[in-house]
Structure formats: structure tokens, C-alpha cells
């Protein structure tokens, strides 16, 4: 088991975000705020990202994490929250779509 497993359960992203903050790292938090159709992760799920692109958690089954991490770097840089939308109907879907056919909205914000 990896270091994100503690006592048999997965350590959660918000706990990790607080630890990173205490270590003085810049952190962005991405949250699934809306889903339509069959989305892989429920509303409220988190992905936390630091300025070096390290991340924990998930907002999809791995389909759009890359795009969210890229956007997080800009959110950390300018401090402005962003609302991202992913889905098969989206033009970017060919690059970073959800293979399940669902759509999700992800809110990305800087911690602090």
C-alpha cells in the first residue's frame, strides 16, 4: 500500500491540503460542484494540487485530472477561482472528455 493509505482507509484530500499549507506550499483545491449523467466521482469530491503539480484525490476517474492540474497552476499564480466544465459535448472533449458520457463542473480555487 502507498503512503496515502492509513489504517486501511484512504487519507483524504482536505487533510492533505492542510498539511501542505502548514509546510508552506501553495495549494489549489478543485471540487466537483455539479454532475450530469453518469459522472465517475460524486459532487463534493476533491483534487488538491500544489505549485509543483503534485496532486492527491480525484474529480473524475482519471479522465480530466490532467486538464484540472494544468488550470490549477494558473489559479495558484493569479489567485482567481475558475469554473471548468467537461463533457462529451464539449469541444475539448476529444482531448480531455469523459469516456462515460457524463458531464461535470469543477470549481478550482487557491487556498489562501
Amino acid at each position: 500500500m502507498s503512503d496515502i493509505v492509513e489504517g486501511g482507509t484512504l487519507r483524504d484530500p482536505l487533510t492533505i491540503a492542510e498539511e501542505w499549507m502548514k509546510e508552506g506550499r501553495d495549494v489549489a483545491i478543485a471540487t466537483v460542484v455539479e454532475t450530469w449523467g453518469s459522472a465517475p466521482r460524486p459532487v463534493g469530491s476533491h483534487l488538491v494540487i500544489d505549485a509543483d503539480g503534485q496532486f492527491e484525490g480525484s474529480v473524475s476517474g482519471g479522465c480530466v485530472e490532467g486538464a484540472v492540474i494544468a488550470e490549477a497552476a494558473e489559479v495558484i499564480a493569479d489567485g482567481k477561482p475558475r469554473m471548468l466544465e467537461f463533457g462529451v459535448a464539449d469541444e475539448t472533449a476529444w482531448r480531455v472528455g469523459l469516456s462515460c458520457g457524463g458531464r461535470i463542473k469543477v470549481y478550482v480555487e487557491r487556498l489562501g
Partner: protein
Amino acid sequence: MDPYSLKKLNQCRRERRAAILLTDLGDGRDRVVVEGDLVAGNLGEAVASAFRSGKSGVVEVDGRSFFLNVHLPPPRLVMIGAVHISQALAPMAAIAGFDLHIIDPRTAFASPERFPNVRLDAEWPQEALARSPLDAYCALAALTHDPKIDDPALKAALEAGCFYVGALGSRKTHARRVERLTEAGVSPAAIERIRAPIGLKIGAASPAEIAVAVLAEIIEALRSRGLSASRSVAA
């Protein structure tokens, strides 16, 4: 997110208190609402409804858009009895995301060698549960077959409104248990909540198979608890 909000939210989660992170999607400001806090107006109604349903989501209130991320305490499984079934049930339930607590006053059973990495109290349920009280986010499985140990724990679980209360034993054993609990002053409606014989009917034979049946029954109770939760708030 405000660092203060994150700290407060994580603290609530550690203390098993229900909380909502309320984010104004217009200006990005957020705050933590703890269950029982007063929030005025239409937003207050949305907050109360989210605590009841446990569902996170976006709400439109007075022309503004808010995201409510609901954090209910993680379910905890309290096992009365450090028995063979518990040895199988503990690791399965941990993987499924449950906090664990095993209680058995018989020190030969409740040994750390038999239960590595699990919170284990070699005490009577009354003592252990006084220190770590049951709540609505707990499931209790009484597994000792010994009324002296199981009965007080079952009574405590029903009083605390645990979302699941199950007891090991045949129908005959359970009939005698019902008589004892009735004599002890537990209401028929409360006794009716006890799942006995314990576990979904999957023909489980071995201790590990019974553990699967029990865990499945607990998950079923957890995932269908929205309705009963709203009833208890309304009552």
C-alpha cells in the same frame, strides 16, 4: 478557500461533527456552517435541507449562486465481541471506509495480536461507550452471543439512534433477547430496529462470509438512511 475555513472544517471532521462548507460562487468567499448554527433566510433553509439529505450541490438563493459541500461524519462500525467474525469484518469494513471500534471485556478475545491496527477496548461496553459515545453515524453489531455483554450495548445503540443495529443469533435467541430488552424498558418500536438474525441472506456459512453479509447489510442501511434522518429531524 480561506485557510481558516479549511482548518475549521477539518477540525469538525475529526470531532465527528456535521458541517457544510458554504462557498459563494460569485465572489469565491467561503465559510463553515456547523450543524446547529443559525443561518438566516432562504440560505438557512437550503443549509438545513442539505444537512438532512447529506447531499452536496449548487443552490440559487436571492439571485446568488452558492455551493454547499456537506461533510457528515464518516460511518463508524462498533463491534461488540472480539470474535472470529470480527477478525474478518474489521479489515473488510476498514477498506469500505468505516472507522472501527471493537469492544469485548474478555481479554483472551480482545488481544492486540488478534486485532492489529484496530481500536480495541478490553472493557465492558458501558465503560468503553461512556468514553466514546455512539451517535447517529455509528453502526453497532453485537456479536458475542452473551447477553451480559450484548444487551447493554444494544440498548445504548438504540438510544443513540445508530443508523444500524444488528445482533448475532438465531430467531430463537433473538426471541429471548426481545423479552429481555422489553423487560429492561426498551420500546417495541426500538426493538423492531434490531437486525436479527444479522446480515443479508446470502447463505453465508463461514465467519468471513457472515462478515460479508453483515457489512452489506450495514452499507444498505447507511445508503438508505436519508429518509429516516429527515424523519427524525422533523419529529
